[in-house]
């Protein structure tokens, strides 16, 4: 383990210039990986929320265009009074608080969700939600 770490540190120093020059491409790869991971995690949401407007029939509102969508703004969805009384748009910060524990953002919301404790996991999920 320690020799592996030592090799890795040496390699990191030697490769840093190469890595930096490749950072634009790598960052795109990273984003793709993050989105892919978020898509896996969407398993937590799928039972209540469709990802498009067509495949309805779930008990929660669909999430197409959720990023930057004003809160409780879908026509025809029966939001809780608690959510209707809010005034914000779903940006990354709001989504992050919401996904950690919805009641902390909007007490008495009618979304039943135990929350995602891991910050990394929430980031991945938000990265995916941005693509919807």
């Amino acid at each position: 383990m320690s020799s592996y770490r030592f090799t890795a540190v040496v390699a990191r120093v030697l490769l840093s210039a190469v890595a930096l020059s490749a950072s634009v491409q790598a960052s795109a790869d990273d984003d793709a990986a993050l989105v892919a991971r978020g898509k896996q995690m969407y398993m937590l949401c799928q039972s209540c929320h469709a990802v498009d407007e067509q495949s309805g029939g779930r008990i929660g509102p669909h999430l197409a265009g959720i990023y930057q969508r004003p809160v409780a703004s879908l026509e025809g969805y029966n939001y809780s009074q608690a959510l209707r009384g809010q005034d914000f748009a779903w940006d990354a910060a709001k989504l992050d608080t919401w996904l950690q524990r919805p009641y902390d953002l909007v007490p008495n919301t009618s979304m039943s969700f135990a929350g995602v404790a891991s910050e990394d996991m929430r980031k991945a999920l938000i990265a995916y939600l941005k693509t919807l």
Partner: protein
Amino acid sequence: MLNRRSLIKGAAALPLLGTLRAPVLRAAEKRSVVIVGGGLSGLYSALLLSDMGVDVTVLEGSQRIGGRVYTADGVETRPEFGASQIGRTYARLINLCSRFDLKLIPEHRNLMPMSSYLDQTWVRSDQWVDSPLNRMVGDEREMQPALVNSMLLSRFNPLKNLDDWLNPEFADYDVSVLELLQRNGVSPAALQLAGATGDLHKSSALALMQEKTRGKFDATFGNVELEKIDRPYGFANRKLEGETLARINNIEGGCSRLPEAMVEALGDRVHAGKMVGEIDMSGSKAEIRCHDGSRYQADYVISALPFSTLRNVSIYPLLQGPQADAVYNMGYVNTTRAFGIIEDPYWEADGLEPSFFTDETIHMLWALEKRPGEDKHRFMVVFTDLAASRIDQYPKEQALALMEAEIARMRPSTKGKLRFLDMYGWGNNLYTQGCRHMFEPGQVTGFARDMILPHHRLHFAGEHTRRNDFGMEAALESGERSALEILGRA
């Protein structure tokens, strides 16, 4: 192609490019997960992991898959021995039924009005409030005898959000139902009735309040006003305006159709008759050893067993602290029910109501309205908690004979009118050892939060590990959580 050199480069480059791991790209080798327990939670975690390309194996001790979902297909009227009720906010369950083309139908188990037999005297529900048998005081008197325990718990329930029960702020409610009721000045007569309709000593009031809160969530979801209870056990089961589902739904053809469909989707990855005796994680993989000598190796294990049976499995490294306390000491309670057909409406002869509650050996008889297409009403004799443990002491034939004789003794009009078909007591089921978990006083604060944390390569699912949900939906909630935990760490 990956070789050691490029792996090292990758490891070196990652911290510069971003700190997030990307398991999706690295998952060249297929991870393996053994799921112990083939009930709803185990099957759901298997299905979700399998959907994500994980190699899963489900080991079920019994020859029957489905755990506490158990439709008695061989019995006339096809009763549900186990879970049956699907609330309109059971999103995972509703979605899963849709995936397998299973139809949800309104539950036809509407309970007919309920009289009571207390102190060897009959009283109709519409005469209860003013009856001399009703020795409760003030507005307590409005509560029907069979509902006293449940209604008092609702009255004193301070929880609003579904996860409040885990908030230390409410630790003061993690006491016996008796202590809660006494603290609130409930009359001795109400205490006695509460004791006849539910456990007073061994159940945490806080844990029961979680269920009340989830029930209220289901009833009020979509800005629906909570109605006054209009049945002996809750509300009339009707569809709400504009809704496709009723308040309470069943799966057409029986709830067992769901685990069957899940097994079909999982194919040969589900093994019945594999009782696990040991989970050994002292090596580089987990090894699962069955009673029949077979062994399985896996990267991770999910226990989807109730703690009442997981406590019979040796686990290495040993469980510690609150988690050990949970597995070895969590309370379990029983429910026993007998099922049958009402051949003739006996209530027309004695002027009492069809259903009844008693403070004797027979706990309750529920007369159930006939379903569409049926020409006779059905009944269930229902025993919970202590009443169930009492009747479970008898072999089946003896228990059925005792029930029939006791019911006829108390209510002669039923003689020859009740045809018993079968009975089922979950306390006598070797693979569950109880009908459900029940946190004892102090156990919610003692271990409810931490008991679900992974132990080495072992993760925990099962209804008893729920956070927000109830019933079958809680089983699915836990299966989903454990599947996600594994995806997150791989």
